[in-house]
């Protein structure tokens, strides 16, 4: 019975001198045999999350626990072992080795793990048969359709019989006939003893999912009433990289908008005074916060959902992030 628990995952990296957080205190959990769909638009952190789950990227903070193993605590040989035997990955755009045949591509993980050639070849044959490509084993990727390449990629991900299969945008480069075949395959391999996590922006896949994890920023309910927030001087209202939900209007006091730089310093963007608003672009465009907001003095702000805000401020969006 495998289970997956990700708690308070934060991933930070530097870009152009600023601190970027594709994941900010993100949590989710999934159970054995489930097909989990990570849903969200481009740039919301789906691939970053998959990289963390695959053990290819170490989060800045938070933890991932899979089947009783704390993945985020693994290093060296244990991490390599996890990558080889626990997590099988289907990469976006297939990412097969172009010079190798389908059979050789499927064999690669086994051969890298030291499995003898004959044994690896037999295993590859079985898997290619399973994904319906027994006759295409000696073809190179450029001699196969996108759907066939994706099925080879799935066979490669399954070759170590991993309990966790991760697929990044598995339908992104396929026509609808190929999509059907690939999704049927992914649905089929999500069975007791194995969990399949699919990252996609394609909402159609959610119909097949056991668990849907939305990575897009929470959208405030259009009917949600404005609510007032009292801030003490120095108190942070939201941080750069956090999910955007509300647009704020300053009622009293001053709020400082600043960007966190990768060297630990801050860069002030603006100071918002009573009557002015800030934080409108994130909720409108469903993007994470591009800057942080902190009370410069004791202040009171009112948060509006984007629908209500646009009704009240038809000239917006305006000047602050």
């Amino acid at each position, binding site marked *: 019975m495998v289970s997956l628990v990700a708690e308070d995952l934060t991933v930070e990296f530097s870009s152009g001198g600023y601190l970027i957080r594709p994941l900010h205190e993100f949590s989710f959990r999934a159970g054995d045999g489930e097909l989990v769909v990570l849903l969200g638009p481009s740039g919301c952190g789906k691939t970053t999350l998959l990289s963390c789950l695959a053990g290819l990227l170490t989060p800045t903070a938070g933890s991932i626990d899979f089947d009783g193993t704390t993945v985020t605590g693994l290093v060296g040989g244990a991490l390599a072992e996890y990558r080889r035997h626990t997590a099988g*990955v289907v990469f976006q755009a297939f990412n097969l080795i*172009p*010079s190798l045949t389908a059979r050789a591509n499927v064999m690669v993980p086994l051969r*890298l793990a030291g499995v003898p050639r004959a044994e690896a070849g037999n295993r590859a044959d079985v898997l290619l048969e399973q994904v319906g490509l027994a006759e295409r084993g000696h073809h190179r990727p450029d001699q196969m359709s996108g759907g066939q390449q994706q099925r080879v990629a799935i066979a490669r991900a399954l070759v170590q019989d991993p309990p966790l299969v991760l697929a990044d945008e598995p339908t992104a480069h396929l026509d609808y006939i190929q999509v059907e075949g690939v999704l049927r395959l992914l649905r089929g391999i999500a069975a007791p003893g194995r969990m399949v996590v699919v990252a996609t922006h394609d909402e159609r896949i959610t119909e097949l999912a056991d668990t849907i994890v939305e990575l897009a920023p929470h959208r405030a309910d259009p009917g949600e009433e404005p609510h007032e927030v009292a801030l003490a001087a120095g108190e942070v209202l939201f941080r750069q990289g956090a999910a955007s939900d509300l647009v704020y209007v300053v009622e009293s006091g001053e709020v400082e908008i600043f960007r966190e730089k990768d060297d630990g310093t801050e860069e002030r963007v603006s100071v918002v005074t009573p009557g002015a608003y800030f934080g409108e672009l994130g909720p409108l465009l469903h993007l994470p916060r591009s800057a942080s907001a902190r009370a410069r003095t004791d202040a009171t702000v009112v948060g509006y959902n984007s629908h209500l805000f646009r009704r009240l401020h038809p000239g917006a969006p305006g000047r602050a992030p």
Partner: protein
Amino acid sequence: MAPMLVVTLADLTYRFRQFLIAVLGAGVVFALALLMAGLVNGFTTETAQTVGGVGADRWVLTVGSNGRIAAVGVFPEADVARIARMPGVRRSDPLVILPTQVLRTTGGDITVNVVGVRVGGLGDPQATAGGDLTGNDQVVVDVRSGVAVGSHVLLGSTRFRVVGQVENRTLLAGTPMVYVPIGDAQRLALGGRPLVTAAVTTGVPTSVPPGLRVLTNQAVEQSTLAALGPAVSSINNTKLLMWAISGIIVAALVYVSALQRVRDFAVLKALGSSSMALFFSLALQAILVALAAALFAMIASQFMDGLFQQPVSIPTGAFVALPVVAVAVGLLASLVALRQATGADPAAAFGG
């Protein structure tokens, strides 16, 4: 490493044309380097053949010639007879060697080294085509002069009949030797006076007249070759440049290959490959390309020596050394892609 060997060989096949171009490019440069080695060796070989072809045990030259047979330092012909009477000497014959003379032929002017010999004496060559010298106004030429037996040529204002040809008689970077009776040589350049530039002996003279010195064949060869020192140095430097250029060609190929395979490296790392294994793959590619280029060069060089006027004699050692140099070139070339291999981020495999 075995799985990476399969990946490496598959990639070589997959990018066959790309690698073929590099093999041809580096191969031609390797071949030129071999020919450079052949040129330098050719200078040594031609000197040894020409000096050795005289059949002497010792050479007697003026002290001022510093051992160079092509340096004109004269002494009386009568000294040759005196040397012949010295203890230890069985025979002594005169030579008049006149470097860089103009031989006028129907096909144009040719620069030659004229050797005046006593007919039937030491230094009188045995023709490989036509006949030997028998009297005045006759000349035996090296085949590289391109002058046919039976034709007539001018040396100075004297007309000579070509009676024979010899092979492998050149000096100073392929300049052909032409052999005339010694009296003709003395009339050509010494006003007919009884002077010589060298005495050659069988047996070893224990003493010689004042102003003369005795040299072995090896000493004469080395001194004569010294005149080509700057040329040899330039050729050797060019050879080093050829090695460097071939290295740059292979390095460029490996670098481009590595850039094309960045995604593959990331995927292979994500699938469990180590950085060292990836570097091994690149280094192996570079070495295989360099070795293929070396093989091509060994074959091509056999057909390219006609590009040079000078005698080209590629030493066996150069053929043995070339694969070793190729491996070194491949290894050095692969270093340029070290960062691509070891720095590949496995998380980049997720990119679309």
